[in-house]
Structures are given as structure tokens and as C-alpha cells.
């Protein structure tokens, strides 16, 4: 949030230092206060207890599972220690101030200190809360971004191309490596103003999924199309999908063979087809078709790739995309269950997929995100993938964090 009193660390800094991701997650929430919901506090205390038991267990012999858990818990434990210390100081200072036997000079000093200590406590509360929110299981992965035109004919397709260039520029500015898997438009150029029918690109940097996942959803544009002669403003839309990337050598690859994991695909359930020229084949023809199509039979997920002249490259890309789509679908199914449960408790809005998430209004030169409620006015900078876009994306991540916290509280309330 742009108006929050404390520093809201950019998510991008996490990309640079993936290992300390968790500790850096001091995101703001609008529920900023020094108090912490009792449900969350008790959760943190339980975790601290478990942490202690695990530490003792590990002292008597190593076991990978416990060690992993310990790692996950340690940031919570640290945050709780800080919170306890800050909370103690505030309590001490307050009782000093309210104690009638306190020396007046000392009381003044205490009153001075109290302000600063309170801010410490607010920050500590914040860190504690965010440390409790589980990191999205795909957050550490690179990601695939898919862009397709929605309603609005060729204007929507032109806008889809604009979004493609916006994200490419954003990645460029922030030193994120990208590679285009698929760029389909009518004539094979990626110039502005040429309608785009589908683009898929990978942001190869680790943690990219965590950065871009909040971009998923329907992006709406309001502007006068270049082809409009009467000067009327049109509303059209493009959809953005963000998938975890499971390209080879990605962090998730070790899970490819584990039937329990989201990334697992039984190759027997995939039909692989290559484009073959009808007719004699062999030496009789010198065809250039290299398209590959994969169908995951149980879910009827179809992936086709034809961008490369190399059939084997197309095959590779198609497999990567299929894995990503299936992992994402499995994850979404579980998320939907969680959201349905939370909604019954607190009515959390579902994010992304099918919902209109952002409006780009060219007439007013503004961009409004409908989830965080943030409006910025430098539309050109947004479309050029500049700082203003980063600002909007950051606001959404904060909003998302708040929702997660609410969900967490709701869950604790349920189980307690």
C-alpha cells in the first residue's frame, strides 16, 4: 500500500536474494496494529513449542523431514521472539507511566520511549503475522505467462500485444530473464498495433511465479481504437494466465516422478501426435511441418506447439507447458476448496481467473486495480513496464497478503 507508514519491501528484492525470502516478507496490511489476533498468537506459540521439540529430536540424530520443518518454522519463531520482546517493553513502559510512585522525570522519559517502542511492536506484529502465512507452494519457481485476447475483436488482440510488451519491458527493467515459447499473430512480427492471438513466455528467474501470480485474470482496456473513425471509446479485454514453469532443471523436477506431486504426469495418459504430411512421406516430400500436439487424456488438456522448426524443440516445449498447466489446475482445484471454505466464514473475494482484475483507461490516463483498489495515473509508464507498474503489482501482493491473513484467522477460529 502506498500510504503505509513503514517500508514495504519490494517483492523484487526477494528475487535477488531467494534464500532469505521469508525473512524479507514484511508486507503491509491495512489491519496494521500493535495487537495480534489471539488465534494467530496461539498458533505461533504452538509452532514455537513444536520447534523446540524438533530441535531436541534433531540433536539426537538427523532426519530430513524434521530438518525441513525446522527450517520452515524458524522464521516464525524468530518473529515471535521479537514480538515478545517488543510487547514486553511496551507493557513495562506503560506500567511505569501509570505507576503513581514513578519518579516524574523517569515517567517523561518513558513516555518519550513509548512512541518508538509502539512502532517496533507494530512492525513485530506485522512480521509475525506474515511469517505465519504459508508461502505459495509454487512461489519459488520460474513462471509461464500466457496472454490471449478476450472480448472485443481485433482491438482486444491489439491490447493483448500491448500487455505482452508491457511484461517484457518490465522483465527487462528488472533484470528478469525471459524466453518466448509461443508468439502467434497473423504475420509473425511482434510490432505494436498487430493483433496477437496467443503469446506464452517464460520468466526464467527463480521466484518469478511469486512475483507474477497476482497478474492472472482479466485485464480490461478502455480507449479509442486506432481503427475507430467516430472517436468512440471501446471497452475490450485480454486474459492473462500465470503458470508455474516446470522446464527442465527447474527446482520442481525432482518431483516429476513422484505420483503424489502436482507435477507428476503418467506418460501413458498422454497422447503425443506429430504433424505428418498426408501421402507418401519419406523421400517423396520435403515438408516443413514440425508441430507437436499433446493431449492429457484424463483431463482433456491439449497443448500444441509449432513455433520452432525443430520438432524435438516443439516436443520439449509442449511437455513443459503441459506439466505447468496440469500442476496449476491441480493447485487451483485445491485453492478453490480453501476459498470456498473461507468464503463461508469471511467472504474473501476470489482472485484472478475469469474475474476482471484491472482497468487501463487511456482517456483518463489511469490504471485501476480492482482488488487492491489502487489507482495510478502514469499509464504510459505502466505500459512501458516501469516503476508505476511495479507499484500496482506491489499493491496487489499486499492485498493478497491481507486476504491470506484473514483466511488464516478464519481457519484458526474454525479449529479452535
Amino acid at each position: 500500500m502506498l500510504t503505509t507508514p513503514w517500508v514495504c519491501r519490494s517483492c523484487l528484492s526477494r528475487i535477488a536474494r531467494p534464500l532469505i525470502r521469508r525473512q524479507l516478507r514484511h508486507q503491509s496490511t491495512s489491519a496494521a496494529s500493535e495487537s495480534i489476533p489471539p488465534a494467530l498468537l496461539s498458533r505461533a506459540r504452538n509452532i514455537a513449542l513444536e520447534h523446540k521439540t524438533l530441535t531436541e529430536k534433531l540433536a539426537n540424530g538427523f532426519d530430513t523431514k524434521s530438518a525441513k520443518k525446522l527450517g520452515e518454522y524458524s522464521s516464525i519463531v524468530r518473529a515471535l521472539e521479537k514480538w515478545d520482546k517488543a510487547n514486553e517493553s511496551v507493557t513495562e513502559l506503560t506500567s511505569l507511566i501509570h505507576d503513581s510512585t514513578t519518579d516524574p522525570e523517569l515517567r517523561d522519559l518513558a513516555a518519550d520511549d513509548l512512541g518508538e517502542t509502539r512502532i517496533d511492536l507494530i512492525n513485530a506484529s506485522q512480521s509475525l503475522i506474515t511469517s505465519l502465512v504459508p508461502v505459495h507452494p509454487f512461489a519459488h519457481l520460474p513462471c509461464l505467462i500466457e496472454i490471449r485476447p478476450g472480448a472485443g475483436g481485433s482491438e482486444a488482440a491489439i491490447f493483448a500485444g500491448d500487455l505482452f510488451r508491457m511484461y517484457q519491458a518490465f522483465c527487462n527493467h528488472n533484470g528478469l530473464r525471459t524466453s518466448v515459447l509461443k508468439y502467434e499473430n497473423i504475420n509473425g512480427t511482434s510490432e505494436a498495433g498487430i493483433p496477437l492471438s496467443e503469446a506464452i513466455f517464460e520468466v526464467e528467474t527463480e521466484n518469478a511465479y511469486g512475483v507474477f501470480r497476482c497478474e492472472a485474470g482479466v485485464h480490461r482496456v478502455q480507449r479509442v481504437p486506432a481503427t475507430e473513425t467516430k472517436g468512440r471509446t471501446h471497452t475490450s479485454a485480454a486474459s492473462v494466465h500465470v503458470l508455474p514453469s516446470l522446464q527442465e532443471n527447474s527446482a520442481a523436477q525432482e518431483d516429476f516422478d513422484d505420483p503424489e506431486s502436482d507435477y507428476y504426469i503418467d506418460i501413458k495418459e498422454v497422447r503425443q501426435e506429430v504433424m505428418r504430411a498426408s501421402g507418401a512421406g519419406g523421400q517423396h516430400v520435403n515438408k516443413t511441418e514440425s508441430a507437436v500436439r499433446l493431449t492429457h487424456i484424463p483431463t482433456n488438456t491439449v497443448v500444441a506447439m509449432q513455433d520452432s522448426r525443430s520438432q524435438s524443440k516443439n516436443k520439449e516445449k509442449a511437455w513443459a507447458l503441459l506439466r505447468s498447466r496440469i500442476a496449476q489446475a491441480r493447485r487451483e482445484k485445491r485453492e478453490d476448496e480453501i476459498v470456498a471454505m473461507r468464503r463461508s466464514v469471511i467472504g474473501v473475494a476470489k482472485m484472478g481467473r475469469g474475474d476482471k482484475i484491472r482497468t487501463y483507461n487511456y482517456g483518463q490516463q489511469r490504471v485501476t486495480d480492482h482488488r487492491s483498489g489502487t489507482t495510478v495515473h502514469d499509464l504510459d509508464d505502466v505500459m512501458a513496464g516501469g516503476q508505476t507498474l511495479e507499484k500496482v503489482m506491489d499493491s496487489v501482493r499486499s492485498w493478497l497478503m491481507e486476504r491470506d491473513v484473514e483466511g488464516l484467522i478464519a481457519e484458526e477460529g474454525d479449529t479452535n
Partner: protein
Amino acid sequence: MPRIPTALLRKARTIDAFLPALLAPCRDLHTAQNELRWLREHVEKVAKARRAKRDTLVKGALLGQLVRERAKGKPLQYLLGTEYFGDLEIKCRPGVLIPRQDTAASVTHLAKLVRTAPNLPAELRVLDLCTGTGCIPLLFRHEFTSNRKDFDLRIVGIDISDKSIGLAHYNLLKNERIIQARAGMTNFAKADVLADPFGDLTIGAPLPVRSMLNHNKWAPFWDILISNPPYISPSAYWKTTTRSVRGFEPKLALVPPPKSKFDDRQQGDMFYPRLLKIAEEVEAKIVLLEVADLEQALRVAQLAQKLDVFDGIEIWRDEPDVSSSQPTNEDGFHVYGEGNARSVVCWRSEGGSWLGKSSSPKPPELLQDAPEETSSNSYWPPSYYQSNEVNFNAMPRFMWKRHMGDQRGKPPTRWRTPKTRWREPA
């Protein structure tokens, strides 16, 4: 060729001015759009290279020229200079046949079957006859070595055309790093598959395969023989090949040469008896021969069967690796995979187990015609390798007999396997 519908041409024009011209060779809009994109990418690449040399290029003009040439039927692969063959990018030049995906599919399938075999010899030798761009040796090596490094793999590709041998060497150089060319040996040489090793040598004419191996001091025995020879009959050349193939690819690579008293079909099949003969001479344990269609596949399979030296013969289609489908039966031969019938595969002795076939090894008495063991660790005495001339005294007895035109003795029923070449399975 049917005319392209005007409506399609009009549609193409609204999308891009270059597209209608590309519809002629591509036939459908989708392919034309892909080709246009690849041509554009190529022009960008050329422009970038020129810029690096402080040279300029009128991109539109180059693209226009490429599109015009493509519209006349010149293969895209010649325009762009390469074709993909499995994972490899192979250089293509006019005068040498463009590698086909179907060939890549069978070679990949073969390499994948063989590389997991438990009882391979420590030194595996592969001979590719009619190698063209050299694509088959390079892909076989790439696929074979991609999951086993413990082998000494020796591959030789042979072609009659100097252009092809030159290009094959260049392709080896270009792909050296990816295919781990240094583990073992990869080489190319000129020879004539059709030349009769016992016939009269014409001065200046290419050597027969065996004389060439001998001349280069390469081994006389090869474990695997692969060939995608010219297999199109003169009538099929006019009826079945596309205009782009006829107009721009070398006929030498497609149609076997005419020969008196040979009818159309015999001319199309001309290489196979020679290839099987060479397979016999080099004692190949697996033979993979590409063919035009099911009819030719059956003729070749029957020919191989008549030789009575193979333990098994089967036919592979364009995509032999589609594992879900059961083999069909054509005239007593199993046919695997999907698509057109594309190759005939024959095996004998260890070759069966390399392919994962459970065939029982032949009883030793079938080797009765074989001469006595020589004491060296090679079947051929050392003097055989050292000489540039064929040294008759150093030749094994049965071959010597045949070389002298003595056909009285029955040829050996089974080719002898020099035992010492095999590493005992661990």
C-alpha cells in the same frame, strides 16, 4: 496440382502481403504463416550478423527475394541452410538431399533400443551407407551417447557424392560438441554401394564399399548397418514426389540409376540386394533399411528372408515408437508403429537381444563353415589391416574362396562372430 482457391488467397492477402505467394508451396495457410515467420526470423538473424560487420541490409528486399524463391518451390531448408533432425541442426546445401523427419524417427528409435542393451560389445561399430548430409551417423551417435558414456562408438558414413561427403564432414564439425564425437570415431568416406567388389575396377571410379574400408584400414566387420538409399522408381518419381523435391533435390539421391533389363520396380529396388550383400559381408547384427512404402517393405523383407541368415525381420512405420499400438501382421511380418511403412529391420545373433527380442542364440554347429580361430584378438590377421592392397593370403578361407569365384562350397549359414570382441556381461 489443384489450384489454390481464390478465397484463400484473398484471406492470405489481408493478413500479410507476402502470404499469398507462400500458399503455392505450402498449400495451407497455417504452414504458410509458419514459414513466413521462420523466413522473417532468418532475415533478422542475417541483418544482425551484417550489422556486426558494419554492413547494412535492406531487410524487406531480402525477405521479398526469399519469398519469391520459396514460391517457385525452392525448399525452405535450402533457403535457410539447415534442417532439424532429431535434436540436431543439420546443414543443407543444394545438391545434397534434405534429411527427413521420418528417417530421424527410425534412427532415434533404433539408438534408444540399442543403448539400453546389456550385452553390447565394448566397441560398437555402425556403418551408414548413402549418408547424404551425414545426418544418420550424427543423430545415432547423439542419441546413443546421451545416456551411456562407457562406449567406444565407431561410426562411418559412406556416399558416392563428393558434395555429400564434404557436407557430412562439415556437419560433424558443427555438431562435434553436442554429439561427443570424440568418444570413439566418426568419419565419412566416398564409395559406391552398387559397385561389385569382385568386378573390374574402372580407373577413377569410386571404390566398392569393402575396398574402401580396406583402403582406409577400417575394420571389415560392422555391428549395425543403416541405410536410407535412393528407393524411388522412375514412375513413382513423376507420380509421387512433390514439385519441390523434383525441381530442387538431387535425383541421384532419390532414384537408382537405370540398368538394362530392369523394369521400373526393379530399378526402384536396386540398392537392397547390394545393401543386404554388404550386410552379410560385414557380418552386421542389425540392419535398418529405409523404404518407400509397405509394398517395397515387403519385397525387401522377403529378399532378406531368402538369404536365410537373419533370426528375425520386421517392419517399422513412420513413428515406430508409438508403444500403445500392437503390431499388425503383413504377409507374415510384424509391422510396428503408426504412419506409412518406413523401414525394414533385420537382426541376427546378439542383434536380437540388442533390440530387446528374446531370441535363443544359435547352436554352434551352424558355424561349421567358419575357419579356425586366429590367435589375435581380431578375426582378421594384422597383416590384413596393414596392406593397402587386398592381401589374399591374409584373408579368411571362405572369403578367399568366393573371391576366387569358387562357389562350390555352400556359403556359411551363419556369419561367424569373433568371440574375443565381446566383453562378458558383468
